[in-house]
């Protein structure tokens, strides 16, 4: 079984994000990146499926050359090789373009499964998997918390409101990983050493013949409103009720 799996890099969620002065984006100088946690779940699942069913796990990502480090982390966990589509910076993509790039990679690689994180924790768009399946006209199973392969079908348990839904989807298919799908392994030292020798193909976006025009225009970034100070009451219940009515308009 051949699996394509995504490894997106995201800004360190614990880093203090600063906006550019013109509000066109965030300042990326000195910013650290980490693999998107949901992609890590997808990679772990790809590796587990590979351990049972054999085949190949190919890690794909998009971005500048230093995204190789993110792919390399997945190779250290045990994936076999990587593909990096270069020529686009992080801010030059929207979910639609990413899905169309992945659709091209799908056509080149013809995998049985395309695994993705359900969303990236920076943009939180949660659209790429769904768009990708639509462009490829294949089945999709998003928010997977369990994946089993039976013959030519993937049996996927999905986390939905109020419970779990179990669906069967014919392969090839797109599956997006939810948090409870698995616990990603740590990259081992032998894995990290071996990853150095694994190949990462860089493909220039221009050679894919894709229209890189974005469908989503980012108008501006704003910082969240800073929290105002609290109010201390020294009076009685009547005063509190009055203020909740008149000032907070909570009751």
């Amino acid at each position, binding site marked *: 079984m051949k699996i394509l799996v995504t490894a997106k890099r995201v800004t*360190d969620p*614990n880093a203090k994000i600063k906006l550019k002065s013109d509000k066109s984006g965030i300042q990326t100088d000195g910013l650290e990146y980490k693999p998107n946690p949901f992609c890590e779940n997808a990679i772990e699942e790809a590796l587990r499926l590979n351990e049972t069913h054999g085949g190949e796990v190919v890690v794909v990502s998009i971005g500048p050359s230093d995204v190789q*480090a993110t792919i*390399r*982390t997945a190779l*250290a966990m045990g994936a076999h090789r990587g593909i990096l589509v270069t020529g686009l910076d992080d801010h030059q993509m929207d979910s639609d373009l990413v899905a169309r790039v992945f659709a091209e990679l799908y056509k080149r690689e013809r995998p049985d499964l395309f695994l993705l994180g359900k969303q990236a924790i920076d943009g939180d768009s949660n659209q790429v998997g769904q768009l990708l399946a639509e462009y490829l006209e294949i089945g999709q199973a998003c928010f997977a918390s369990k994946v089993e392969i039976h013959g030519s079908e993937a049996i996927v348990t999905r986390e939905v409101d109020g419970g779990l839904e179990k669906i069967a989807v014919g392969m090839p298919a797109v599956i997006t990983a939810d948090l409870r799908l698995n616990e990603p392994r*740590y*990259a*081992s*030292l*032998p*894995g*990290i*050493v071996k*990853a*150095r020798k694994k190949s990462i193909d860089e493909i220039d976006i221009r050679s894919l013949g894709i229209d890189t025009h974005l469908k989503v225009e980012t108008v501006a970034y704003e910082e969240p409103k800073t929290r105002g100070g609290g109010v201390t009451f020294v009076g009685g219940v009547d005063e509190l009720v009055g203020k909740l009515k008149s000032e907070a308009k909570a009751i």
Partner: protein
Amino acid sequence: MDFEAVDFWGLDAELSEEEIQIRNAVRAMVDREVLPIIGKCFEEGHFPMHVIPVVAEMGLLGANLHGYGCPGIGEVAYGLVMQELERGDSGIRSFVSVQGSLAMYPIYTFGSDEQRQKWLPGMAKGEIIGCFGLTEPDFGSNPAGMRTYAVKASDRWVITGNKMWITNGNIAQVAVIWAGTEDGFRGFIVPTDTPGFRARLVEHKFSLRASVTSELILDNVEVPLDAVLPGVVGLKGALACLSAARYGISWGVVGSAMAVYDEALRYAKERVQFSKPIAGYQLVQEKLVEMLTEISKAQLVNLRMGRMKERGLLRPHHISFAKRNNVAMARRTAQLGREILGANGIMYDYQVGRHLCNIETVYTYEGTHDIHTLVLGKEITKIAAFE
């Protein structure tokens, strides 16, 4: 909240991508497997056994050895592994140090090929735990005085003696025991289930509580003739092991100090007294600056030491310098961190108290601070002050 490491001098730029990846993998493991449970382990006085298969699976046991199931990473990468482990706890780092540098290393360096094949793969997998018996109740800084003795009979060695302060003693399946013989000091590979071998748990410690410390009692322990390490006669074998372990300690304690500094800095920025966070007061800033400065200097020493080791240039006195300086730095850092945390500094909810107690062990094990002072004194003056 994620740990923020000290990198005032941008030393990450001097590390390879692979070294950074190795460090980050161990850092993530410590965040997930060690930090959530280590305060409780320390309080209850037990070693977290569940960490053994995790560190073994990651290839951290004997990580800088080549072959026999060991990954053979570089010396700086190995140092970074030690640093990250001790950022969690000195007891965890001690476990890995003893397994790799004190038990596997002598078998790897002085053992026969049969001995290496027999022991190292299982030790790398964490299925066989090792310990190292050199120090005795009456012989610490002066190991040459040891009383443990091995007599050679026609078909076996018979070993008798006591070893003290032995990390991993009670959980080990194999011990590397150093003993006097007719020909000088020799190392022996002794399975701990050999009749006459006993490990007694050292209890009532206020330091390294999440680590197993033991006394080993060898009463006419009989091992076959091929249990002796053939590659070395004399104390230089044991001392080579100590150099390997001290190298790891020098890196490890920087991890301890970075954990303390990170916690103290966060605390100082959040804790408001009078009109502002205590980080805004001169006395607290002086402490934080002192910690940052000394940690950064120790990092520079470690990186240089590691690169020298990779090039085969490192000498024992360099390691004495690093062990002496860096452990004293971590001890002082723990004290300063504990001061900044005020009353909270004595609680298990925070890390500084645990590091403060742990470093007391690290300060005197593997060559006390004072002995390393005298090693350096001898190096400078060519006059030994300890004979």
